[in-house]
């Protein structure tokens, strides 16, 4: 089978700590894949390793058939990977519009995507001149996702989109992510199993730096034993 993203047995160190001890991850094109697991299992590090922000010491990562491990992060991202980090990392000194504009890889990217972005997140339209520092958590999350959509990205790495948001806003965010997955492939890290199970088609469970189980989400939902064992909740 041909995967958009194919991660094979990566091992990543942060400083002296051995964080990823063998993660495999295959992402079919046009799907949402959820990375599940407890806090500190290595989900965020997996995303960062794909992007080269914490480059793996061993293993292979192929994106659209091209090996990308060892490339500098900006080269990896420029191949067509968008990143929505855990704490959103909205640029506070930039206006909402600048926050979007900075993600352009070619002049005019933002102009051509504006309509699509505003249809996903209508609220951003009236916030466009506001400074990034003055946004609420939910608005920041919308902007962070929108920012990843400005350039022509075939793969989106989204880290904890529901973290710290009110239930209504989580609903909106889920709708948006589902909509955008029709155009690009998504890898989602999500603590909230309810959210993940509603969004994702596939899952990979990471436990202590290893990928231990993978499959279709609809099978996992009924597998209470696995959920209890690896995710510690129902």
């Amino acid at each position, binding site marked *: 089978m041909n995967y958009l993203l194919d991660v094979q047995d990566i091992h990543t160190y942060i400083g002296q700590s051995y964080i990823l001890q063998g993660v495999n991850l295959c992402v079919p094109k046009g799907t949402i894949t959820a990375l599940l697991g407890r806090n500190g299992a290595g989900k965020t590090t997996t995303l960062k390793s794909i*992007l080269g*922000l914490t480059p793996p010491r061993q293993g292979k990562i192929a994106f659209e058939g091209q090996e990308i491990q*060892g*490339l*500098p*992060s*900006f*080269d990896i*991202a*420029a191949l067509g990977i968008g*990143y929505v*980090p855990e704490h959103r*990392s909205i*640029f*506070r*000194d*930039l206006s909402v519009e*600048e926050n979007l*504009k*900075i*993600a352009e*890889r070619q002049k005019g990217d933002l102009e051509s995507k504006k309509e699509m972005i505003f249809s996903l997140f209508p609220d951003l339209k009236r916030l466009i001149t506001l400074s990034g520092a003055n946004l609420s958590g939910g608005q920041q999350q919308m902007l962070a996702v929108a*920012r990843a959509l400005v*350039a022509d990205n075939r793969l989106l790495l989204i880290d904890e989109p529901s973290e710290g948001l009110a239930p209504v806003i989580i609903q909106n965010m889920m709708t948006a992510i589902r909509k955008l997955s029709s155009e690009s492939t998504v890898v989602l890290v999500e603590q909230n199993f309810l959210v993940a199970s509603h969004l994702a088609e596939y899952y990979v469970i990471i436990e202590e730096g290893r990928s231990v189980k993978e499959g279709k989400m609809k099978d996992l939902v009924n597998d209470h034993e696995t959920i209890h064992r690896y995710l510690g909740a129902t």
Partner: protein
Amino acid sequence: MKADLRKNLVLWLTLLALTIFFVAAASGMETKDWVITLLRTLSVGAVTFLVASGFSLIFGLLDVLNLAHGTLFMIGAYIGWSVYVRPDTFVDLLAPVLLLASGFTLSRLWNHLSKRIQMKGKAIRMLSWAGLLLSALILSYVLPRYPISIWDVGNYGQSPITYSFMANQGLSLLPPEVSFEAISPIVAALGLLLASLLAAFSLSLFRWGGQSAPNLRWQSFAGFAGVFGMGLMALFANDSLTAFLTGLDTTWLFLISLLVAALSGALLGGLMESTLIRPLYSRPIYQLMITLGLSAVGIEVVRTIWGRPEFVMPKPSLFNSTGAGCPATSLAGWAQNHCSIILLFDGRVRVYNEIFIPIVGFLVLITVWLLLQRSRLGMIIRAGVQDSEMVEALGINVRRTFTLVFALGVGLAALGGALAAPSMGLSTVMGESLMLNALIALAIGGLTSYPGAALGSLLVGLLQQFIIKYGVIGIHIPFTDIIFKPTPPLVPASTVMLMVIILLILPNGLLGKKE
């Protein structure tokens, strides 16, 4: 939100208190005294700002505390002096510098070529060392034979002091031109070009691997053609270029020297970042040590080239006349006679120091502000100051921005040095007190805030100048007959006091943001 409001309230109250303090200080003086104090503040503040803003841009984006910044300011002053007083030396140096730089403008070609090489890492490393060695050999043959007319530190009659003195008298007694004897100019040009190409290619081999090969377009060669062409022009039109510069009015020559100092500073900064700082981003202590070491090395290099003694730099003709009609009583009078001094409320205002320097400082402030706010580069800098990892994750080559910002910061310091040289004079330690002032200004204004650098520089200048002035006229202590005259050591002490007070009230400085 509430904490925000409270912080802003504290900020406004602090600013109000400072304003009241300085207005009270001004009200104790006669008009002419406080007017001149304010003008001097602007002068000192402008120079401090040029150092502080570059330092804060570099620290903000790269997290590098560039302790060599004061030394680079000083080097800028010496470069400015050299262009201004010895344009022939500058022209002689222009050709070899441009030819040597030309190879490095072809980085795309080198990246492209190094992708084609199919060799093991060890062989590649051997190859690049061999290339560097060969390049050094060629240089060691060409450079000693290359004729450059320069002053002689060991000989008083031809030392910088003498040339400066003569220029100040309006005499431009340049020594006779040296010409190509030991080596033909064509061999010299080819040798320099070859050495440059070899060195640039070998250095790019060190970074072998990683990036995908860039596509070659004709634009990749445009920079090379430009730099190489200018180098050849400087080589073969040497005499006419020298004649043109020496014939120029000193005001224009001075503006050229400012530009050259800023550009050389930027070049120096770019080189420093890409060779010495870049390998040390993950080791902050080593960074501190290398910038501190470079600062000492820079001072010694300047002492070797320009000599140990201090000397003055003549002011450009627009601000240098003391003849008929001087001191001028109005701007119109100044414009007519180009006086060095204007009388303002009966106070003697030095036009260059107290009017020209603040104007240049203000222009730079606005230009850099526009660059930061309006350009894409500025957007990347502002974003990178907060989170350079995220900027990289958007597909932007932050490392290249790092080099640009380092070059910009050092260029600003060098410009400041060249600008301050006619008013401060040239000495190898001129950067040290200024660096201290700049650091205090940044602590007061907020370390990574650009408007903070401007505000801090202004406050430091204001406090120092008021104390200096009161040191002359004395403060009458109310209800007593005592007249207190602040002594000179109080000047630096007072700025530290101000810093301590402000940091106690606002730990991030006036306009600094919480980390």
